[in-house]
């Protein structure tokens, strides 16, 4: 395997493309995010979206934040060649909601808020709380890993350049009319 710091920097773009694809999927083909383990799983864009355009001489960063913020400027940035570098998401499964931020270059998870767990009132409650939290973390990580796996298999397939990218480009162009 490649040196860790070399592969981190050389393949950052895979994370940016994953987040951009994820936004496209959320808007156009949500069903592919469901599977037998997460039937009816629902993923939505939360209150923060960061895009960067590396095609210009200097890197341009566009940040959209706020609960009711419109995404018009984000679409415009996509049209100019930007990719998503950070996204705040909510993941809903079986009436439970996880909220978190994903950073493209590391796919690190931050500001992760799991569904509510039972309150800890005495020391004996801690073990149960750890098990419950552990289960909730695992469930989200499993969903993210499967979604990333789906993306990677598409990304290294011929379908990426023949079908997926043209579809994403069509979506980006159609957003001009929004």
């Amino acid at each position, binding site marked *: *395997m*490649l040196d*860790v710091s070399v*592969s*981190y920097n*050389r*393949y*950052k*773009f*895979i*994370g940016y*493309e*994953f987040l*951009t694809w994820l936004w496209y999927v959320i808007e156009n083909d949500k069903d592919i995010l469901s599977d037998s383990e997460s039937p009816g799983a629902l993923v939505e864009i939360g209150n923060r979206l960061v895009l960067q355009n590396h*095609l210009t001489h200097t890197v341009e960063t566009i940040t959209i934040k706020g609960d009711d913020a419109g995404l018009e400027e984000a679409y415009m940035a*996509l*049209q*100019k*060649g*930007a*990719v998503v570098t950070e996204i705040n998401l909510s993941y809903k499964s079986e009436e439970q909601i996880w909220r978190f931020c994903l950073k*493209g*270059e*590391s*796919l*690190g*998870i*931050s*500001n*992760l*808020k799991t569904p509510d767990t039972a309150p*800890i009132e005495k*020391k004996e409650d*801690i*073990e149960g*709380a*750890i*098990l419950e*939290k*552990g289960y909730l*973390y695992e469930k989200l*990580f499993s969903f993210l*890993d499967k979604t*990333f*796996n789906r993306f*990677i*298999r598409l*990304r*290294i397939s011929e379908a*990426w350049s023949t079908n997926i*990218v*043209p579809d*994403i*480009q069509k979506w*980006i*162009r159609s957003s001009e009319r929004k």
Partner: protein
Amino acid sequence: MGLLSSSVSVTRYKVNGRIQNPVIETITSGLKKNVIQDVDGEDANTVVGWTDFDDPFQPKFESSSLIVGPYLIFSMRMDKKSIPAKVVQKNFAIESAKRLAKNLKTFLSRNEKKEIKDQVIRTLTLRIPATPNVYDAIWSHEQESVWLFTHQKTACEAFETLFFKSFNLSLIRYFPFTMADLLCGLEAVQRDTLSRLTPTRFAG
């Protein structure tokens, strides 16, 4: 940031290799060998070591608190003494004045200034208590994975070093390339395609 906090940041790792049997005893021994040491009253600036998740200031590493279901729960503590620059500046000025008066001189050489500054920092480091920072970790031995509840670069690097030193196992941080390479079950041909990927241009 604790694993039971309402909002957490997580860095995920793959454990590269298997720990030798008996697993729990080996892990407990690794934790005890590198337990956090108290640096208050000493001239060390930073110290890193393992501690108990539920009692980070008096670690005992009893298996009842270490093992929770399929998880091993422990924490890394990083104690650091931070001396404000202005405090160093003030004490340096006082000590320099004393030295000048004692030696009936009007100026100090570069070496003398350095010597006074080092002495001031040493004295202050002895007097100032270290600020503890605790980072929780979950080790799922069966899944060969570790979750560290922070994204801080210095904490992650210290954790990786301490983990290797304690258990003789390296950690591979998950990021896009390592996730694709290690989690997606790709075949050799697919791995080769992955390594040759170049950025896509979405704007048509």
